[in-house]
């Protein structure tokens, strides 16, 4: 018997790949893209509770310590069931998605700039994003480049923000701004969306042409708009090769190309592993992994009076919500509904679920992916474990 995986985001894709690795035939059902495709492409595992908003330098421990602290503070976190699998799950993920190179859990968190001039600390990021790790800019000459005629990126603003961030952390780096001509014969260039430029860079020779236009620049690192390829993984390397200078991209805030790049890489990995795909919606027979996500993915939906699990009508818990109080009094504060989901036993079997059903990713209750900053990391690790367990009984 095969394994059915419901959901094609990070949790579902990793579960399907793990089940294939366990020798099962896998049928993956998905309705569309979801939170993974809309993500920054950076993989959080556990946020630093000592971190101070606005100051990247306040505390900078490693993922291993943050992880232990996160489970201590939140004893209902589903990652408590799978802590032994963290390193191997992330390692297997990096094997399948060559955008990422594995990092040890005791390495300091990455501090990455965003195209809005803010920053984000995270555990793992795509190679082109990792190259913009703020502490690694020390002693370097960094030139932030915009594309001449494209309104989607503000290099001067980003350089000024980076300069402020670096100075506060005692990082001494030389920042400059430039503009490179590219695609100027496109009459619609000004309002192009990021993914359109990214797709252009996927075309053979395009990255090299852009790199040649940057070859004369005196710099140790070029920071380009976050559009370095949509469906290919080596655009940054190809630009760097032609320019003779390493190339990086900041995290993208809205309409994030690196998130779509991650989703497309997962889709390719599923195809390469021989995972069968469909958009069937009925309950599957036999072993299955429920990876339908939370609100964006549609795994948890609003019922008449309460939140419901959409496919099996499993019981949903809303931790810390007395009565029907789903949101907290403070807009920026914690909101119980953001941790809503299905509780499971230690083998990720949802309470009240049919035999052979496992759950992974954001459909699991008990954690707030944004506040605890563990979204994609939790999806990958629980997905890996759920897929492996489902294959064992297939």
């Amino acid at each position, binding site marked *: 018997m095969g394994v059915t995986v419901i959901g094609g985001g990070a949790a579902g894709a990793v579960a399907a790949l793990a089940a294939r690795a366990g020798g099962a035939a896998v049928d993956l059902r998905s*309705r*569309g*893209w*979801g*939170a993974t*495709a*809309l993500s920054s492409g950076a993989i959080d595992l556990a946020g630093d509770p000592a971190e101070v908003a606005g100051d990247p330098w306040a505390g900078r421990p490693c993922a291993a310590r943050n992880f232990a602290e996160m489970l201590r503070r939140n004893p209902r976190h589903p990652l408590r069931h799978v802590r032994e699998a963290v390193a191997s799950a992330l390692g297997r993920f990096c094997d399948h998605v060559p955008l990422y190179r594995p990092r040890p859990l005791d390495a300091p968190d990455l501090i990455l700039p965003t195209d809005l001039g803010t920053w984000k600390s995270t555990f793992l990021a795509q190679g082109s994003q990792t190259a913009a790790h703020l502490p690694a800019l020390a002693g370097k000459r960094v030139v932030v480049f915009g594309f001449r005629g494209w309104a989607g990126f503000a290099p001067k603003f980003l350089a000024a923000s980076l300069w402020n961030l670096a100075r506060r952390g005692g990082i001494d780096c030389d920042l400059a701004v430039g503009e490179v001509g590219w695609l100027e014969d496109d*009459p*619609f260039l000004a*309002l*192009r*969306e990021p*993914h*359109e430029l990214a*797709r252009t860079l996927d075309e053979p020779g395009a990255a090299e042409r852009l790199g040649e236009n940057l070859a004369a620049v005196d710099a140790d690192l070029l920071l380009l708009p976050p559009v370095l390829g*949509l469906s290919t993984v080596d655009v940054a390397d190809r630009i760097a090769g032609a320019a003779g200078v390493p190339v990086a991209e900041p995290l993208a805030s809205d*309409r994030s190309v690196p998130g*779509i790049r991650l989703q497309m890489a997962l889709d390719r990995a599923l195809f390469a592993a021989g995972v069968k795909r469909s*958009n069937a919606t009925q309950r599957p027979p036999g072993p299955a992994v429920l990876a339908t996500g939370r609100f*964006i*993915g*549609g795994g948890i939906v609003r019922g008449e009076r309460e939140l419901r699990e959409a496919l099996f009508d499993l019981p949903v818990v809303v931790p810390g919500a007395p009565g029907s109080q789903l949101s907290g009094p403070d807009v920026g504060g914690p909101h119980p509904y953001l941790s809503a989901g299905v509780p499971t036993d230690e083998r990720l079997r949802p309470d009240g679920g049919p035999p052979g059903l496992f759950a992974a990713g954001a459909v699991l209750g008990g954690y707030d992916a944004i506040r605890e900053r563990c979204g994609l990391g939790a999806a990958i690790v629980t997905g890996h474990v759920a897929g492996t367990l489902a294959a064992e009984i297939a």
Partner: protein
Amino acid sequence: MRLLSSLFALGVQFVLHVVRLPWRKAGQGERHFLASYGAEGLLPLSPDERRLLPALDRCIGCGLCNVVCAKLAGVPRHAFGGPSALGAQARSMPDFGSFASHVAHDSDCADCAICESVCPTGVPLRDLARFVSRHSRRGPG
């Protein structure tokens, strides 16, 4: 007394109406109706369209449909914002008039349905495009 005068006025209007009928041009009533209500977009929906409405409202404006739309590359974004513009902005029928330039790109749609296959919330994007197209063309002018 008031009842009698009302009935009398009604009777006069009826006689005038019957006398005028032979000189009436076809479609005049519809034109009058559209002139009064068309500009505001307040036109009746068919039962099928009414059933479709909740699904058309599910757009979260994420823009993923634009990413996979193969026909979007050759179109200037100020003229047509892609399927995502229809989803996020075409919620108010009185505003459909401003979609005239978008609707002009209807014929570019290859009907490939890939936009619908990536939509996180399952908006029936092709039905939405047809709905907007149909209703932005009704009304005067």
